[in-house]
């Protein structure tokens, strides 16, 4: 594989990890989040700070990074318990703008210059780069998918599905809306933190704009395109929207417009996403493989 392809593949794997996390919040628990890039950023910045200022290795820092992201996710998930869906959408946009502003204007976070000189990940004395780092990302992606797979089968997952469908009925069956929504936020933002840590150690130079609001839109587009609430949808979405810019490189200038038109057509004609219930792809799959409805 050429270095160029490895770069694209690595970024897609990282995006897929983050988007799987967003899918837990939006797809499984039905809580709209338009500020997921903020948690991706919190993961990246805490990893970068722990590595450069704290001198910790990637592996010792990783649990802290995930814990920090998940904890802040828990704090910022609290508004979701108070507010209606529309408020939540706007609140999460607000969180994204505020977090980006903090990165940009607080000197501790490197200000407009961002944080550079983030070391590569070491694995038993070997510097992971290129293909080796891609395999590391792929490993974490597999872990994340396994967690999502199990979550969908667990009582916790079922409780989240029930809340997504009909909150009052779910509550009448002993499901605490507070507890399970926060659980989804914690898992989802934790995954974003993991993705952020990998991103920081891969790019090795991060700045506030990497985690701005349009990035959140990109993540949400990936979930919607792939199919909200499905297991493989986020991965497919990350793959398509991650690879498209490269495939359509000749279009350069029209690329972003093309994206948005694609997203618009998708949301207009197949709001359930490519792998959603009753989608065209799902129907074709079901006709080829009997019993492939899961």
């Amino acid at each position, binding site marked *: 594989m050429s270095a160029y392809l490895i770069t694209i593949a690595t970024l897609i794997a990282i995006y897929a990890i983050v988007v799987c996390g967003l899918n837990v919040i939006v797809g499984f628990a039905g809580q709209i989040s338009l500020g997921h890039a903020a948690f991706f950023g919190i993961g990246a910045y805490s990893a970068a700070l722990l590595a450069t200022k704290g001198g910790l290795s990637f592996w010792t820092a990783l649990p802290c990074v995930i814990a920090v992201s998940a904890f802040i996710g828990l704090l910022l998930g609290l508004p979701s318990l108070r507010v209606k*869906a529309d408020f939540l959408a706007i609140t999460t946009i607000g969180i994204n703008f*505020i977090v*980006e502003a903090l990165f940009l204007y607080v000197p501790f976070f490197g200000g407009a210059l961002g944080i550079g000189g983030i070391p590569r990940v070491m694995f038993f004395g070997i510097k992971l780069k290129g293909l080796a780092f891609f395999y590391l990302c792929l490993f974490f992606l597999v872990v994340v998918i396994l967690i999502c797979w199990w979550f969908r089968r667990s009582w916790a997952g079922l409780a989240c599905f029930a809340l997504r469908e009909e909150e009052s009925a779910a509550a009448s069956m002993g499901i605490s809306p507070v507890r399970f929504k926060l659980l989804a936020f914690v898992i989802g933002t934790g995954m974003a933190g993991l993705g952020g840590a990998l991103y920081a150690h891969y790019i090795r130079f991060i700045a506030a704009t990497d985690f701005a609001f349009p990035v959140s839109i990109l993540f949400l587009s990936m979930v919607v395109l792939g199919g909200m609430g499905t297991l493989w949808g986020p991965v497919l979405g990350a793959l398509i929207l991650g690879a498209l810019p490269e495939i359509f490189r000749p279009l350069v200038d029209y690329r972003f*417009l093309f994206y*948005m038109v694609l*997203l*618009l057509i998708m949301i*207009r004609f197949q709001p359930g996403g490519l792998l959603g219930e009753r989608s065209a792809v799902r129907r074709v799959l079901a006709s080829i493989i009997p019993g492939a409805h899961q």
Partner: protein
Amino acid sequence: MQLFFEQLLNGIAMGSIYALVTLGLALVYGILRILHVAHAGVYTVGAYIGLFFFQLTGSLIIAALGSMVFCAMLGVAIERFVYYPLLKYPPYVPLIGSIAVMLAIEELCRLIAGPHILTFAAKLPFPEIQLGGITISSTLMAVYCITAGVLAFLWYITSFTELGLAMRATSQDIPIADAMGINSHLIVSITFVLGSAIAAIAGILVGIYYNQVYPTMGAVPAYKTLALIVVGGLGSVPGAVIAAMLLGVAETLLIGYANIPLPRDALAFIAMIGVLMWRSEGLLGSR
């Protein structure tokens, strides 16, 4: 003290412009319960079309009218082709659609008119006023007068006409309004016409006020106005106007005096989260 008053006057102008953009958003939310992010895209288009007609004819009146008509059509097109088919889905579906439209409009403007900043050098036909050593420029006067005019017009429409009554009925409950013989889809379209035409005026005013028109000029208002309709109480038009005025003044004064480290764009959201903690229904919201 003189500086303070100048800042205050600028702040009110800022707030007026926010109010003009937020109006459309509040109207649409009130009637369809949709977060119409693409409204700021309509505002950008308004500025561009206004500039185009102004350069073509040299008349601000023709520029304003042309821009309002074009934006009204754009607004209705967004409503018919994007929102209306998506009403049956959960609210985030039209919201994502709206964001996609917003970004697509930005891109179209960039591709057609180019990425650079265009100047909008027009002199607005309003008098300059001297008040105890403070000069209110003709541009500021124009912003004040036009905003006041638009607000008065809208207040008249919603309070004293049959159209206003139909709009209020439709915003209460679409099926019931239909049952009462109101053509609710027409009312929804008229709401978009009103909101979008006002956005066109706002776009032209901002273009002249800053002497700048550029593709991403709608980006910051797009999301800031969302915060404003939340602070005002979702769907409350007076609430949105008050919130817009307060924000305009607060931003200008805080940036001018306090020199706070946060950029002004985050301020609206900080205020919003504060208001939500204090009154989760917003300033003038119900329920």
